[in-house]
């Protein structure tokens, strides 16, 4: 075991930042699940909303990407 306390902090912080990916997964699942629930109620309206679905997923995912960015910065930039 080598390295110092700062490196330890980097690794722990990067691991904690990875929790954000799980949170983003909850958000994406929420968007997709609600889309499916709505689509099954009114299937004829669903195809016109696929673009909205992907935009919603992309926005939900964006916050998870920031968590990933924090992890990347801690691992490689600090």
């Amino acid at each position, binding site marked *: 075991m080598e390295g110092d306390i700062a490196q330890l902090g980097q690794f722990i912080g990067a691991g904690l930042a990875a929790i954000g990916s799980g949170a983003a997964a909850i958000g994406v699942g929420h968007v997709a699940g609600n889309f499916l629930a709505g689509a099954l109620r009114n299937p004829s309206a669903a195809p016109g909303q696929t*673009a909205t679905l*992907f*935009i919603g*997923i*992309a926005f939900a*995912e*964006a916050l998870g*990407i*920031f968590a*990933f*960015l924090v992890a990347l910065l801690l691992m490689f930039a600090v």
Partner: protein
Amino acid sequence: MAENGGIEIHPMDQFIVKPLFGGEAINWYTPTNVTLWMALTILSIMALLVLGTRGRAIVPNRAQSVAELSYGFVYKMVEDVCGKEGAKYFPYIMTLFMFIFFANVLALIPMSFSVTSHIAVTAVLAFAVFITVTVIGFVKNGAAFLSLFWVSSAPLVLRPILAVIELISYFVRPVSHSIRLAGNIMAGHAVLKVFAGFAAALGVFSFIPILAITAIYALEVLVAVIQAYVFTILTCVYLKDALHPHH
């Protein structure tokens, strides 16, 4: 790790930029594996869109109908999101879609290099979109473009706070736009390599990770297509904001 008898996996080694013809130094003119796979991407797009449609047949052959389908797909996307005025910017969006789509799909060939896994590549694409869209917004609307940040449908008290939030989210766009693509592709390919490392270490039981790799590979095909779609449709949404900034 290897000296303790553990598994030796280097999932990130596939993303190293190497000069094609040996040597160590990389200058701006050095042909690298990135250059090679970008060139292959452009060549395959040309093979589909230029050579494939060369016949100009009334009844299209396979290549021509795929080219026409992709054209129609992107055109409909632009028209649905941006309206008729957006059709003027269709060539740019078509270029973006085809480049990202082909780069993602070519990266799925084993031992190939995934161009879009590098933030340097996707950041250039995303910042090009960001700058283009901002310039279009100001040229089309003048100072009225700033009404994008002034949400007139909200109560007056909330508007300054919303303006700050909108401003931040506007400038964060190229960051999330680029890292979404690079992160998805990079993470997917790294996962494949990690499972490949398991398969190498497990001996007789290596069929378990190989089955998992097959499933993840199918997921990666899906991700490659969806991320090209998402990048393009977000470009359309940003373009729509520039053309019609009023909430």
